[in-house]
């Protein structure tokens, strides 16, 4: 199978969690002789080429981060420029988000289930996974561990030719936080704040308080 992959994150490729996930996914998918071509919506000057590739390919994967409970505005902007097709193109989705629980991604998944029909295409399943916020920040060894399941998911997709709903649901676990996990997260708030401040300082070179309120005076 040849798969057209469009990375729909607006973030620059070097800092993109979605792209790192895609690289792992492709490792599994291509291991069995499959091929891919990958494009990036963040590179707006390539949109004409992406439109051409969409017109020419019948197996398409859109990979995206969750933005305010649905697809990023930039992705919608691109999709609105596509010419609907004749009905045999299959579109699959790879959706990732920062919060750990799978349930946080279900609202967007529900939209993705309807989207291919608007483009004259066939829905071919969604692989979704939360807890991906730190993929770009963690050390290489830890990143490999986080991304390893996506290598397997790529292999599975090559075998199935789609994202099987039941397997995708298992992949998305945990669907909800267990009471124990929620308690641990509550108790670890001071540690969590320390980690975020460390990321801000080391990766963003910022020492501003992360809960700064620069516009407090205008709030009514």
């Amino acid at each position: 199978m040849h798969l057209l992959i469009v990375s729909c994150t607006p973030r620059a490729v070097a800092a993109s969690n979605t792209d790192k996930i895609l690289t792992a996914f492709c490792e599994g998918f291509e291991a069995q002789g499959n091929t891919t071509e990958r494009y990036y919506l963040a590179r707006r000057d390539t949109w004409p080429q992406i439109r051409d590739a969409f017109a020419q390919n019948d197996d398409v994967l859109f990979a995206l981060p969750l933005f305010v409970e649905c697809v990023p505005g930039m992705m919608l902007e691109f999709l609105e420029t596509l010419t609907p097709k004749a009905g045999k193109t299959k579109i699959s989705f790879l959706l990732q988000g920062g919060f750990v629980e799978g349930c946080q991604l279900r609202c967007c998944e529900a939209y993705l289930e309807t989207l291919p029909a608007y483009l004259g295409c066939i829905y071919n399943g969604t692989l979704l996974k939360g807890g991906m916020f730190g993929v770009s920040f963690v050390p290489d060894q830890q990143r490999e561990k986080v991304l390893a399941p996506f290598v397997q998911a790529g292999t599975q997709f090559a075998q199935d030719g789609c994202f099987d709903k039941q397997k995708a649901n298992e992949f998305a676990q945990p669907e909800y936080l267990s009471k124990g996990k929620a308690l641990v997260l509550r108790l670890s708030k001071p540690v969590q704040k320390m980690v975020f401040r460390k990321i801000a300082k080391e990766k963003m070179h910022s020492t501003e308080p992360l809960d700064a309120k620069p516009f407090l005076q205008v709030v009514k």
Partner: protein
Amino acid sequence: MEYLIVSTLPPQHEGAAELIGQLAETLPQAEVVYTQQMKISACLGCNSCWLKTPGRCPIHDDYEPLMLKFLQAKAVVFVCDTKLGFLSYQAKNLFDRILPLATMYLTIVDGQMRHIPRYHKNLAAAVLYTGQSDNAYLNRWLARAMLNLHGVSLGAYPFEEKGAALDALAHC
């Protein structure tokens, strides 16, 4: 200003013009903003508003003054069209860019992770739309979006149901 009406449709849009006229007449101290002539880019997902310049988006366009109006309004009404069964990208960008109002810090509400809001502000929002879309889905999405912003959804309504929207806005 009590009510902020933000339209991604131009003032000359026939259906929107009539609707916005009625909203502005009915809702006390309503301010209308048309975004078509404004420069509002898509969110880049860079995390700067959470980690580098907390509370401020690094994109210097026309969005920040609009975001400040969100903080001042009792309720915000988004007037927009729909494409591909969802809000147009112009309208979705208005929501995507709202992240500076949340902090990076997390809390657990009803067993789910949420960002801690940056300000003590109960955002309330309604969407009035034209075009074909699944109303049940738009309501689900708006409720979910406002929940994660620790705000309140006043509902999503097609233009034809403006009466129900006005009722919800009047009682918020």
